[in-house]
């Protein structure tokens, strides 16, 4: 679901925004490397397609129907860079033009819906392919797992964002259980649809499916510079928050126009995980989370800068 304005506080939304900008930049660069002049036509077309695919109702029995998020499917058939780019474009179009998802939550939505699903989906299918080979049957099962995990991890990402910057004080435990269990069911549907579509594509046009192709891997050092740049940007942003002295927190609170007074303890929950009373640790966790995401991205980025042989 696209998160509206007001649910996640400003610092976390802004961090997510930075991460999203970095990932769109990096994925555009990577996709450009192997598509060159074709990038605009292919990325534009596939983004439009994914947008349309998300509207399709897939009946999953008992009168209910599910929808495809598409993050895992996108990276499986387009590759990680193009896949993440296309789904990000879809989210941006939905927010800016169809008012679906808050504008201040755009970073969060891009992060959850395209980046997390894309990265997780890619990790799963890539590892699955390495372990279980690239026969159709194994790829199809792998795509189911990729779809499932991508949705579940997307909800976990939301819970993490909530923990770090949720504007309500519902217990973290309850939020976690509610989000993850409901998204597990959604994930099963997503995995099923992803696997179904992939099976048909592999039958008819396997040459179009990225994961089914075998391409050489090339490491590009310029990408490291790029991703490190954004890593440092995120850290610079988070550094004032990471100041452990009360003075530091006070200045930061004022900067963001929060009422810093005794009774408004709930505000500081914007910076802390409710069950952890030490706010310093939770801020550090926020920073580490950002670094973790970027590190995963960095690793994958090195592996995904490919050239068509």
């Amino acid at each position: 679901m696209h998160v509206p304005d007001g649910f996640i506080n400003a610092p976390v939304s802004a961090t997510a925004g930075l991460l999203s900008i970095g990932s769109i930049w990096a994925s555009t660069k990577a996709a450009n490397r192997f598509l060159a002049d074709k990038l605009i036509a292919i990325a534009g077309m596939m983004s439009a397609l994914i947008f349309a695919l998300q509207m399709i109702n897939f009946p999953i029995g008992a009168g209910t129907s599910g929808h495809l998020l598409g993050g895992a499917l996108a990276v499986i058939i387009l590759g990680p860079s193009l896949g993440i780019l296309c789904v990000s474009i879809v989210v941006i179009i939905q927010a800016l033009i169809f008012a679906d998802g808050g504008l201040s939550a755009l970073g969060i939505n891009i992060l959850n819906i395209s980046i997390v699903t894309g990265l997780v989906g890619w990790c799963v299918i890539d590892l699955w392919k390495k372990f279980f080979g690239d026969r159709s049957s194994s790829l199809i099962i792998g795509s189911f797992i990729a779809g499932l995990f991508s949705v579940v991890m997307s909800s976990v990402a939301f819970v993490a964002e909530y923990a770090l910057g949720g504007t309500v004080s519902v217990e973290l435990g309850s939020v976690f259980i509610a989000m993850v269990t409901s998204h597990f069911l959604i994930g099963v549907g997503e995995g099923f649809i992803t696997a179904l579509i992939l099976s048909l594509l592999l039958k008819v046009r396997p040459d179009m499916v990225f994961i089914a192709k075998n391409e050489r891997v090339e490491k590009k050092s310029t990408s490291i510079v790029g991703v490190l740049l954004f890593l440092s940007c995120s850290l610079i942003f988070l550094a004032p928050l990471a100041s452990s002295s009360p003075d530091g927190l006070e200045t930061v609170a004022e900067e963001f126009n929060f009422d810093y007074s005794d009774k408004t303890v709930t505000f500081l929950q914007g910076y802390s995980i409710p069950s952890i009373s030490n706010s310093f640790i939770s801020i550090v966790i926020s920073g580490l989370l950002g670094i973790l995401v970027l590190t995963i991205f960095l690793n994958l980025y090195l592996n995904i800068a490919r050239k068509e042989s």
Partner: protein
Amino acid sequence: MSGDHIQSHLNTESPLIEIEPAQKIISVLILALSLAFNDIRNPLKFNLILICIICFVFVSIPSINYLLRRMYVIIPFILFAFLLPFISKSGTTIYLYKDIAIYQNGLFEMSNILLKSIAGVSMAVALSATTSQFDIVRGLEKLKLPKIFVAILSFALRYISVYISEFKRVKLSMKSRGFNSKSLTDSVAIAYAGSAMLIRGFERGEKVYSSMISRGFDGNLFITSKKWNQSKLLYFLCITTLLVNILGYFS
């Protein structure tokens, strides 16, 4: 997830229709960010910002119904907000009736979220009510977003309607063959349609590329610009909002 809607018709009666898209986008950004950085516990500032947002929205939309129809995406979140006084256990407890309690902070949080999410959606609806989708993209380009990114957005928008009509045609032809899409196995048929669309999408992308190079495309993008007006009202709203934020910082 986003429902079966193509961007609704523009509100041709709004004065903002003639206004530079880049200015509208910046205004929305300033308002949205101010909304994000402020809270109901600072009632003066928050309400001033809300008033600016309401001005922007009312000048843009043709009717309240127009706005309400497009707010269905946040309904689950609104419902969740109404639960908050009951489940957000913090602050003083207020006993409503016998043992049913609500929590004061929960009330605050509920109003906070309701106001913010509704204001946010309204702003986005207001923007798309006065700016065609391509003009929004042109506005982004004017704001110095990378050309290639703007081009991809522009192509995606161009072909979304092609796919939506194609999808509708497929749905129609399936229905006219008695397809009812109730059971799980019907998903297979739908997936067939989906994968056919995907394949045609790849091929169409290649064909569009062929068209592009046939007309000399070599990677350089030329963007055209139109003549627009500036809006005094938007300037006023933005400056007011910024002042509210800055003065609030010092008070």
